[in-house]
């Protein structure tokens, strides 16, 4: 049996709605993009998976077959067989475009609001609880977004830094919340279907934040993280608007 850590277990939680097969595909793809599941890892057995997701075996098979078609997983027979993750999922431009179209500016602002609430508390706690040896690693992760020019890797590096802040806050719940926030927005943030986010600026903001935490300056850390998230929200809104309103344009004669 494949082992599941507490945060991975969240990936396999029972689903709330219909279109479950698609939701399973999404959840597994996002978990891989965030680095919660990694390439080479074996998924739990089909019976176990369908039980964890709370879906019929046929629904699960449909999802796995979709993941296979996308080349994200491969199934091998035999004693050491099973379904393995074989590649980083690539969120298609089409999916990202739809994401932008389906979200109103109010919704994007609201995601930012929730993220800001979580992040403000997280960085204050990180100041209080982080230990000195952890600063080096945080600084390294802060620079992650400039180490690559591939959008999916920039997205992963960005989310990894934010998750690390919650880890330093020593709160499993805030870590879960941060993972959920990242899964929702980080790919749209780094996609190049519209305006692109400037990695240098993001790295500079991450580094300033890491320094504030190392200096045990909770007021600065909170101010910096709120500014940083506001920049993310501005970027998402601008990116959405620059895509225009294709849906509305279609409706007009």
């Amino acid at each position, binding site marked *: *049996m494949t*082992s599941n*850590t*507490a*945060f*991975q277990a969240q990936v396999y939680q029972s689903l709330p709605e219909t279109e479950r097969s698609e939701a399973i595909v999404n959840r597994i793809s996002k978990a891989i993009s965030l*680095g*919660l599941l*990694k*390439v080479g*890892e074996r998924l739990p057995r089909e019976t176990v998976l369908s039980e964890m997701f709370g879906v019929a075996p046929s629904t699960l098979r449909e999802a796995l077959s979709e993941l296979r078609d996308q080349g994200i997983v491969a199934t091998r027979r035999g004693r050491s067989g099973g379904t393995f993750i074989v590649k980083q999922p690539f969120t298609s431009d089409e999916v990202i475009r739809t994401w932008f179209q389906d979200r109103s500016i109010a919704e994007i602002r609201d995601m930012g609001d929730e993220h800001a609430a979580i992040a403000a508390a997280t960085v204050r*706690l990180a100041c*209080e*609880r982080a*230990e000195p*040896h952890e600063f*080096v*690693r945080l600084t390294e992760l802060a620079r992650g977004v400039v*180490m690559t020019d591939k959008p999916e890797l920039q997205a*992963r590096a960005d989310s990894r830094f934010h*998750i*690390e802040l919650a*880890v330093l806050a*020593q*709160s*499993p719940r805030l*870590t879960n919340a941060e993972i959920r926030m990242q899964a929702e927005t980080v790919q749209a943030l780094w996609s190049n279907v519209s305006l692109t986010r400037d990695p240098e600026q993001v790295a500079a903001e991450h580094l300033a934040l890491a320094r504030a935490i190392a200096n045990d300056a909770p007021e600065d850390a909170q101010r910096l993280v709120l500014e940083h998230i506001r920049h993310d929200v501005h970027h998402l809104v601008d990116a959405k608007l620059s895509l225009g309103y294709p849906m509305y344009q279609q409706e007009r004669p």
Partner: protein
Amino acid sequence: MTTDNPAAKAAAEVAAWMNSVSKDVYKFAESAGALWTNRSSPLKVTPKDIAALETMSKDFLGKHTTAIGAGVIFSVEAIENPGGILEWWTSRAQGIEKLEFDLTPGGERFYDYQNMPFFASARNTGKQSMWGPYLDYLGLDEYILTHTAPIQLAGTFIGVAGYDIRIRKLEELFMPALRAIPGDAALLNENRSVVVGNSGAYLVGERLRTIPDDKQLIPVDAPHLGLSLLTSQ
């Protein structure tokens, strides 16, 4: 040590518990190191060695049911095959299960163990050490404390052996003794962060920047673990 002072009693109780596990942690490290006696350096970690380490971890977890993980971590410099660096098992409902770690720097789930204090400190001091509370993200994903002892081979540091314990388990273990102390009291780690507090006044993870005027620190007599007890004067 006999005393009627509840704080001194609590400190003694924590020390007694720690020291009894310490013995087995040192023993674990010693038997792990003994696997490589008279073998060539850099060390090879063979499947047979891993099986032996698994048995040791299983025995440790069987004896100390409060622990949730146990195993060994080797220093990269000491061993030849990078695959055998982090051999750690966790207890499951039935038996034990090996934990998989990503040890490639820059990897998707890179687990940066060489920078972890329980590793560095055991290497630098040659003594047992303790680290926590910490959230073991990409490891057990649990809020834990890790207690390790160095593995020495002919006087050279080659790694550590140890175990993980959940913070909530420490809470169960030490709360009765801490609750017997009048006023707010807390067990602190080496960096003066709270491990267990006897009230809402000192919450786990909180670091005490200064010791309040009306409080004092009583050392917990468990060598090199850096634990102390914060109580009223």
